[in-house]
């Protein structure tokens, strides 16, 4: 008599809690999906991964040319050149926007796989983040180059505190919104059109090309802080601008909103994932 196997039960009741031990056992699939998407993304391109650097640099140049003088960032943060300012926003923004964009469509582009085989579905939108993460790292290297080129004064103590916080907000917010949109797009195909449009709007309500401080009304800032990218970008710039006062209320609003986004996003995803194969 052989040892009895662990019993697995397939039934209609689905948990909305992430099954972390199951995700761990599928860890290689995260890797393979990411690896596939990164490979495919740059196959048959002559410049390949150079595009990752070229895109933000060109955007920085264009933004600097058009908005640099008009916005006069120098006034609020002396010594910080506009190209560095806008790059530090774009670096995070590009991660967010490319993650949300590809995660939003990911369930549909992977529909043939979803219909034929089981694996934890959340791997798919998370993979979109990982792929954007690879681009982020490459762009980050270019960013450090720009910092050195402009000889920007950096407060290293602030960096050690604020960059991790910023990245955490970035990841939580992006993950939550990505999962949520990925699930919504399966059910309501309208989101195919809503996502690019929404991202365009979101670029302008996030302090990417302008400093948050140009908005003088406090309550407007509080409303804008509901956008997780608002906090992420603000905190990311703290070590550069040398801002010595942090608005605790702003920070609190952003923390709560990113946490809510990630909880609601994953909750909605888990609640609907069982039926992806039926309607994708």
């Amino acid at each position, binding site marked *: 008599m052989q040892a009895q196997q662990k019993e697995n039960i397939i039934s209609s009741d689905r948990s909305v809690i992430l099954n972390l031990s199951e995700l761990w056992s599928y860890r290689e699939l995260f890797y393979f999906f990411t690896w596939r998407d990164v*490979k495919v993304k740059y196959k048959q391109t002559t410049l390949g991964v150079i595009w990752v650097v070229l895109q933000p640099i060109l955007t920085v140049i264009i933004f600097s040319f058009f908005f640099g003088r008009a916005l006069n960032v120098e006034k609020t943060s002396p010594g910080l050149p506009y190209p560095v300012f806008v790059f530090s926003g774009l670096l995070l923004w590009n991660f967010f926007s490319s993650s949300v964009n590809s995660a939003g469509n990911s369930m549909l582009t992977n529909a043939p796989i979803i219909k034929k*085989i089981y694996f934890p579905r959340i791997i798919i939108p998370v993979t979109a983040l990982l792929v954007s993460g690879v681009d982020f790292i490459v762009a980050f290297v270019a960013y450090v180059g720009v910092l050195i080129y402009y000889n920007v004064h950096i407060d290293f103590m602030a960096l050690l505190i604020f960059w991790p916080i910023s990245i955490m907000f970035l990841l939580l917010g992006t993950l939550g919104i990505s999962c949520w949109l990925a699930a919504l797009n399966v059910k*309501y195909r309208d989101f195919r059109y809503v996502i690019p449009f929404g991202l365009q709007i979101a670029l302008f309500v996030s302090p990417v090309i302008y400093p948050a401080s140009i908005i003088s009304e406090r309550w407007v800032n509080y409303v804008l802080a509901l956008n997780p990218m608002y906090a992420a970008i603000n905190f990311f710039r703290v070590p550069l601008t040398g801002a010595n006062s942090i608005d605790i209320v702003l920070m609190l609003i952003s923390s709560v909103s990113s946490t809510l986004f990630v909880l609601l996003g994953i909750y909605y995803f888990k609640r609907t994932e069982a039926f992806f194969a039926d309607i994708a």
Partner: protein
Amino acid sequence: MKPILDIQQVSKLFQLYHKGLPYLSFRDRITGMFKKRDEVEEFWALKDISFTVEPGESIGIIGRNGAGKSTLLKILSKITPPTTGRIVSRGRIASLLEVGTGFHQELTGRENIYMNGSILGMRKWEIDKKFDEIVDFSGTDKFLDMALKHYSSGMQLRLAFAVAAHLEPEILVLDEVLAVGDVAFQRKCFQKMEDISSGGRTIILVSHNMTQVKQLCKKGVLLDQGKLQFVGNMHDAISGYLNNSVRNNNIDVSSLGRMGTKSPDFTIQTMRVLNVKEDLQVLEGDKLSLEIEYEVFAPINELVVGFSLTDFYGNNVVECRSTASYKKFEGAVGRYRARVDVFPGVSSGTYNLNVGARSDVSHLEFIPSVASLDILPAVSELEEWNKSSAGILSVKSDWDIKKI
């Protein structure tokens, strides 16, 4: 010993939206609030299915199209949840509902082996270990570093199947995937499946190919319109299937789906298979006699009626038209009965029988899959392995062997 799979009163409900697509748009949601919800029809794809599978047992799930076979496999594979009921499994399930899931055209053969293997649930070290074996099995070693888009479709299928064949789960769920590649490769795959099954692992197979199911599975599950009709001996399950697919030799075609111009001038009414053994079974090499009854309501120029047999993969294997005996014949108004005797000359297997008619200007009517016809291996006294011929055609051959 406890069963390795215990399927307990599993049911699956689908909601059919009569208008448009199964997914919604916000507009539908909003307008839906003001409308009566009478457009949704409920449909039980499976109703109260219960059976158990013992370790090492291979079972075949058979039934007509729409019987719920694929839905059951999808539930077993955790792709879609059951509406009610549950399944207790005591082993790792790997499912193969399609060959080459996750294959990407831009990736090389080597990369696709890893990608596909990983999606099917293999660990990287497992793939590393079996890599050479997989490549060897697929016979694509020369093209390994070429993008998949440059492969022929046959090569892609071979590669895909090679990966799948090296899965080693306790329970393997298969959906008609044995049907890939050329005949030689099919035999190789089939052999592999038999090895897996005799190696003590459990296989659950859905197939329309009765010869195949019979060879691989001892136990059969027969589904009909979402309900469990029979569980038990494979042979009995198959005869149950054939009985319920055609209750007598008169096939009423009035309810079947038709293609073509659906001209009001013409209609096929019934079809009869005259010389069947027991319910649409014919021995390999035997004569097949068919009768087609049709009615012409308005004169048709150069009417041609005919039938065809398509194999499991949808290939038109045999096609016979009335022009074989009549160069031209006027389709004057009236009822007709056409009888045809033919030696189809195909080797054993399950074939779909299709009928149709055309005039000089249009396809009047075509009824696909009127019935499924089972052609049985003729030499039944031979050993199991020697029964089915590997060729598509079954030809008469005379042998003369002398010692020299």
